């Protein structure tokens, strides 16, 4: 079919029914600019049309939730007037097209979500997924994404405190680049995105509008990729962290002086999305004059101006009396600003270009009337085969030999090849830096601290989306608990394949329900999230990859929080949590040593989860070393401590298979004395000392050898 035969709405990715719905709303055929607006605002990326009905099982009614899902970021109360804002986002497809700029603009976008709320962004985390590093293109993507995050995050002046990374074949043509951001604010600085006050003005702040990423939201984020799609490349957006830095300072000064009625960042669908959202959220309308938009390229048409996704722009609603002061503050920080609109009683968003009305639509309809789909779901056929294909673990294993292989895995080995490229110290808040479990940040001037962990486990969620998803919630909770924090709020990022396939919808629904149940069990509110669907290339869906970002909170912070490098001669080693259950499905042992994937992951018991997590939080105030057991089981967790502390460890009475078992909800604790003060189930397993990691009859490895392998896992693959 030639383009001429394809109707305009279809070229923009709309279905016939959606087009009819637009006609129903307007009572006429849409003008070109109007059609462009609906097509982007009703895209999967902006409207969550496939997932929205399933997200309602998340709850966020805990009393410390100040702003739940729906705004740009979730906000929770930390007491004494302090609030924290958090949010997670994906930039998967743009990062595949152009890894450096895709990842960089992803960082820029998430930061705007945070300072839109009135908060100063204080930290970032980067959950990543790529194809195996033995393929050059995967190395190219990985290198590009990491340097893009570094290039933007470091220059914009927000430290990146951690993240996670997985490598698996299904991500080769569809890497996942998620970013989580955290902000801090005082109560009185909180701003929302609902415009009010007829006659108030809308001011566009920041970068000039150019032809960046027009249609990017609908094309890149809402449709599957095919081989050859690289031709769509002109829609690459170039990030400018310097502009963003100035924009952050401008906005924070505006909030400080109380000059902002409402504010919204410009993301997907640019001006059309931002103006309709601020107006629609406040039940108002807006007159927008496109002639006043500062442009990078003079000859842009109205549709292009409305749809442009140029980075580093914000839309602030201010009173006419404050306009001059707002413009002066922007000028002081050396950013451009233009007054492009006026708030009206509504309900229409009316767009003018050269004095002519080029679009007039009910503002709220772009968001509220977006279609919702209850797409069919069906348990996929692969599960029965996979579950039947149980891991076979020999009774006799040489743990030293197994460790040599596991420690060399790029997702188990030292990830400081990544975190060394990120400024992770700016603001002097970082108490636990990347390379431990959760990150821990102090809040200067208070006793309080925040902990964060991001976690995903795509192979386990593939084998059982419900159990796997619950387990990542518990794992992230444990990761923050071992720093002394209590799990306090969660954001989630749902990276899935093509939702038009029933098997993918089933994975999504199971996953959401699994996460929701775990959050319920821990009384952790879900304050926000992001959905990234259509992660499918050449007909192959990615592994279902929900990712969570857990915020933990402590007040006060432990004076000397546990660290992996604090093990010393003579300390007692304890294993806290359930007995091993032979949980090898999607374990590092089965994936890496056996080179296969199968079986059904164990379920995590909510009662046990509460008990272990609570005990971790309180032990963190008393003992020097506390580490949760995850990828690679007990043996890898102990090796990490031995390597980081530069000392040997002797374990007695743990059989070889149990060393690599990945039964959830377990932690290692080390104490200077011979008792462990906890109610949770625990047992003594050994002592710190010597030069080897010694597993008795099951084998041993010298710590310096283990360290060399572990340290070299990423550099040997990436430094050529």
């Amino acid at each position, binding site marked *: 079919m030639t383009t001429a035969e394809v109707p305009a709405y279809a070229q923009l990715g709309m279905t016939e029914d959606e087009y009819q719905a637009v006609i129903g709303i307007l009572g006429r055929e849409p003008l070109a600019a109007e059609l462009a607006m609906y097509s982007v605002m009703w895209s999967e990326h902006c409207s969550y049309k496939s997932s929205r009905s399933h997200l309602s099982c998340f709850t966020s009614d805990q009393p410390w939730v100040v702003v739940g899902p729906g705004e740009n970021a979730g906000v929770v109360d930390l007491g004494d007037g302090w609030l924290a804002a958090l949010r997670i986002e994906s930039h998967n497809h743009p990062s595949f097209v152009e890894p450096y700029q895709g990842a960089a603009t992803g960082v820029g976008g998430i930061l705007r979500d945070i300072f839109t709320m009135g908060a100063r962004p204080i930290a970032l985390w980067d959950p990543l997924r790529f194809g195996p590093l033995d393929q050059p293109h995967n190395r190219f993507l990985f290198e590009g994404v990491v340097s893009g995050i570094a290039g933007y995050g470091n220059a914009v002046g927000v430290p990146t405190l951690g993240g996670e990374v997985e490598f698996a074949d299904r991500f080769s043509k569809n890497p996942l680049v998620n970013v989580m951001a955290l902000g801090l604010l005082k109560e009185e600085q909180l701003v929302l995105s609902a415009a009010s006050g007829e006659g108030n003005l809308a001011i566009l702040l920041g970068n000039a509008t150019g032809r960046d990423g027009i249609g990017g939201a609908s094309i890149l984020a809402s449709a599957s990729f095919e081989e050859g799609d690289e031709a769509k490349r002109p829609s690459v957006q170039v990030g400018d962290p*310097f502009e963003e830095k100035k924009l952050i300072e401008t906005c924070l000064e505006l909030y400080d002086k109380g000059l902002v009625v409402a504010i919204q960042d410009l993301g997907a669908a640019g001006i059309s999305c931002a103006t309709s959202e601020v107006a629609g959220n406040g039940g108002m309308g807006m007159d927008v004059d496109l002639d006043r938009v500062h442009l990078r390229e003079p000859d842009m048409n109205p549709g292009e101006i409305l749809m442009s996704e140029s980075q580093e722009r914000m839309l602030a609603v201010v009173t006419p009396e404050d306009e001059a002061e707002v413009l002066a503050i922007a000028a002081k920080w*050396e950013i451009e600003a233009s007054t492009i609109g006026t708030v009206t009683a509504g309900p229409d968003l009316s767009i003018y270009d050269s004095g002519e009305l080029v679009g007039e639509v009910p503002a709220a309809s772009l968001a509220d009337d977006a279609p919702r789909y209850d797409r069919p779901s069906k348990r996929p056929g692969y599960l029965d085969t996979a579950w039947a294909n149980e891991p076979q673990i020999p009774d006799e294993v040489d743990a030293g030999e197994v460790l040599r292989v596991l420690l060399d895995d790029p997702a188990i080995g030292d990830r400081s090849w990544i975190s060394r490229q990120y*400024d992770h*110290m*700016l603001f*002097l808040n970082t108490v636990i830096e990347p390379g431990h479990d959760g990150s821990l940040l102090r809040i200067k001037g208070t006793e309080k601290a925040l902990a964060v962990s991001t976690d995903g486990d795509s192979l386990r969620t593939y084998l059982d989306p419900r159990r796997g998803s619950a387990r990542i919630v518990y794992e992230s909770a444990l990761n923050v608990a071992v720093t002394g924090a209590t799990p306090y709020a969660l954001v989630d990022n749902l990276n899935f394949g093509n939702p038009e396939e029933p098997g993918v919808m089933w994975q999504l629904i199971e996953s959401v329900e699994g996460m929701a149940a775990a959050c319920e069990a821990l009384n952790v509110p879900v304050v926000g999230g992001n959905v990234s669907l259509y992660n499918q290339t050449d007909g192959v869906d990615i592994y279902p990859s929900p990712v969570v970002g857990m915020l933990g909170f402590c007040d006060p912070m432990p004076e000397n929080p546990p660290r992996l490098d604090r093990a010393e001669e003579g300390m007692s080693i304890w294993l806290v949590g359930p007995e091993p259950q032979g949980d090898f499905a999607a374990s590092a042992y089965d994936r890496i040593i056996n080179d296969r994937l199968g079986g059904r992951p164990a379920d995590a018991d909510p009662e046990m989860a509460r008990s272990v997590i609570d005990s971790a939080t309180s032990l963190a105030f008393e003992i020097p070393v506390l580490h949760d057991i995850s990828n690679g089981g007990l043996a890898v967790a102990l090796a990490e401590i031995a390597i980081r502390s530069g000392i040997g460890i002797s374990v007695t009475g743990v059989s070889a298979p149990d060393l690599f078992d990945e039964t959830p909800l377990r932690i290692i604790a080390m104490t200077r004395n011979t008792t462990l003060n906890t109610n949770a189930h625990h047992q003594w397993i050994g002592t710190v000392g010597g030069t080897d990691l010694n597993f008795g009859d099951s084998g041993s490895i010298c710590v310096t050898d283990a360290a060399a392998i572990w340290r070299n896992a990423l550099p040997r693959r990436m430094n050529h």
Partner: protein
Amino acid sequence: MTIAVIVYPGTNCEHDIVHALSLAGADTEMVWHRDTELNGATGIVLPGGFAHGDYLRTGAIARFSPIMDAVVDLAGQGVPTLGICNGFQILTEAGLLPGGLVANRDLRFICETVHLRVESTDSVLTRAAHMGQVLSIPLNSYEGNYVADDVDRIEAEGDVILRYSDENGNVDHITSPNGSTNSIAGITNASRNVAGLMPHPERASEDILGSADGMVLLEGFVASTDLVDA
């Protein structure tokens, strides 16, 4: 007695250095780069960050900020002047310190705690440290690789104040983290009142941050500002 902390668009370590200088007992005042006066400043700090986005060359555009006439003027009068990281780059661009900074050897950003050996105590920055002392201080830069076309003169005149080393103070040029010529991490000018270094002493200002070794440098600097008549 106030130390002026200069803020350019894109600077991001200004709050951190203010925090650490106040731990060292100093009063500070942030000065916007468009200002032109530094009345009464007994010391000047150019903090780290990405002034003007590091576009063109690091420090190149910042060097022409309106405040720079006053900085050059006071530095010429002997007022203690310190450039950290991006501030160091600006000082070299402004000609207040010799040499320049180019991309790290492996073309990757480096954020990690490194060891520095004190090479000279004859500068406003190192006066409180002792010769050969090894300090554990974070480095955080992409363009931290020091080059100079007259490095022999710089060495001969004793302008090098800090070198990258191992934890025992051994200097090995091959293993310097970023490829710096002669492992140079910090230098001073002929009058010893202007100093610049790539690592961030303010990031090693409290034990809870992993090291407080930067304080010996900052305290020395603050002490030298105490000697200035405002």
